[in-house]
């Protein structure tokens, strides 16, 4: 049953005509999909064949996930901003601002300028915010950000954007194609801050990426992650699920004419571990957390996880 629905979800091609027919398909699909979500984690963890990982609700060979995720982001790179606005009703801007004000990056009196690594930061959304924060709040014009992404298309988008900012000369921001699980061009113990916003759920091997984060951070360096998470209020969760499975793919169809990518994005949110599990994964990678280790945003639609390398 489960695999049949997953196959159905994945193989369905975008069809524009017959809006009503489309909606009917949506409804039946979303119903099965929500049911599937309930046991998705336990089922796939047990039954997933060796050497495969999840791509949305589908199981794919680990070697293929990178390419598949790459295709999704290559196809949405241009409309990435609109996509985020659609998926979060525009609230992602507030979350990102809060994220940056929380980590409060910048040189302080008697301190050093920071080296920041922004992973999966393709379009530079978080990087520009952090540089702005450092300049405006701490009057720090030396802190540097290295933006890495596995996807050259996304990085290209970021580079293009940087040209219209005051960081156009590239002295404070640089872009580099890197696999977050390896980060082979980033030396050990070299970074003050590692940020990853709405990226980590697309990684093939999250524990490996956390290990790499631990490796490149200086002792005392901070790992900060902003990611979609699990809503902790059941009535709101119900509404949110309906919105995710019905509205978002349809909007993807209408706005970007790319239903499958959006379908993947919401499925990947469903498959990402909940707040507690992810906090434990961060601790397992060698980080220390304080309190619960996370902060919920908008009732848990997104969460900020922070760990420190001690």
């Amino acid at each position: 049953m489960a695999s049949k629905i997953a196959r159905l979800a994945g193989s369905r091609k975008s069809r524009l005509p017959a809006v009503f027919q489309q909606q009917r398909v949506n409804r039946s699909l979303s119903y099965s999909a929500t049911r599937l979500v309930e046991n998705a984690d336990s089922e796939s963890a047990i039954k997933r064949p060796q050497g495969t990982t999840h791509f949305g609700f589908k199981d794919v060979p680990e070697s293929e996930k990178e390419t598949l995720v790459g295709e999704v982001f290559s196809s949405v790179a241009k409309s990435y901003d609109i996509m985020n606005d659609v998926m979060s009703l525009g609230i992602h801007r507030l979350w990102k601002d809060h994220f940056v004000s929380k980590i409060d990056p910048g040189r302080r009196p008697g301190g050093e300028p920071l080296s920041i690594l922004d992973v999966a930061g393709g379009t530079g959304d978080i990087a520009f915010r952090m540089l702005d924060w450092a300049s405006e709040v701490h009057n720090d014009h030396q802190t540097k950000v290295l933006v890495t992404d596995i996807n050259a298309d996304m990085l290209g988008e970021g580079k293009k954007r940087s040209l219209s900012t005051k960081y156009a000369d590239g002295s404070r921001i640089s872009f580099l194609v890197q696999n977050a699980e390896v980060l082979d061009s980033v030396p050990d113990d070299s970074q003050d801050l590692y940020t990853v916003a709405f990226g980590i759920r697309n990684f093939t091997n999250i524990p490996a990426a956390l290990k790499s984060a631990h490796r490149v951070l200086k002792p005392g360096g901070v790992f900060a992650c902003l990611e979609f998470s699990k809503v902790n209020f059941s009535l709101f969760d119900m509404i949110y699920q309906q919105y995710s499975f019905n509205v978002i793919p349809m909007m993807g169809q209408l706005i970007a004419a790319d239903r499958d990518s959006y379908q993947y994005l919401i499925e990947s949110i469903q498959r990402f571990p909940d707040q507690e599990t992810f906090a434990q994964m961060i601790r397992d990678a060698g980080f220390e957390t304080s309190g619960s280790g996370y902060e919920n945003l908008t009732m848990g639609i997104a969460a900020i996880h922070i760990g420190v390398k001690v």
Partner: protein
Amino acid sequence: MSSGRFSKAAIRAATQLTNSPRLYHSLTHLPPSPYTATQIRIFNSALNHVPDHGFVKDSLVLGCRDQGYLDSTHAVFHNGVFDLIQYHLYNERTRLASLKEVIDLEENSPHDKARRYCIERLKANQPFIERWPEALAVMGLPSNISSSVKELAELSDEIWYLSGDKSSDFDWYTRRASLSAVYSTTELYMTQDNSPDFNNTWQFLDRQLANVANLKTTLGSTSTWVAFTGMASLNLLKSQLARG
């Protein structure tokens, strides 16, 4: 398992078991501290900077720096300076239990013991008393107020418990509520007190505690009066009606 080593999952399950909040209270096994050794070191260093910098993020950053960490490290504390304040409150509340032997010897009645615990607790704010209003302001922020009120309730519970309060009726609540009120007003008074050794504060505390005692008598007398008058009026009415 067969090789005599525990699987990773088993170890995690075991550690989660010890870290999870207990469903029972044990006098002999106190709950583990919510803070790691690193956090305790950072917070203690940060508190040393509070007299100069106040209850602001800078103190926390300087605390991280003193302990050999980076300026960015402060970001690990999700509530910023409120985490530092909560650490101080937690630390000083749990410290009271260590004074039990001395106070049990020196004071007699539960009331005197409670007064003494209040004084000991208030004295812990002395090093940064000029900065304490900043802490109170942070504690009063909408996002923090529920944790602050909970901490205050736990403090007055701790004080009454250590003082040997054995009440098991509604008095249990009134004692804790009134002590919370007394403690918080005295704490506020102390921030404005310039008298030597805070003598005015201790006098203020005594007056507040006496007021509470008076209030209790007043409340008791009032309720007796209301009950008596009520019954009397009712009987009067009944007798009037019966007579026709």
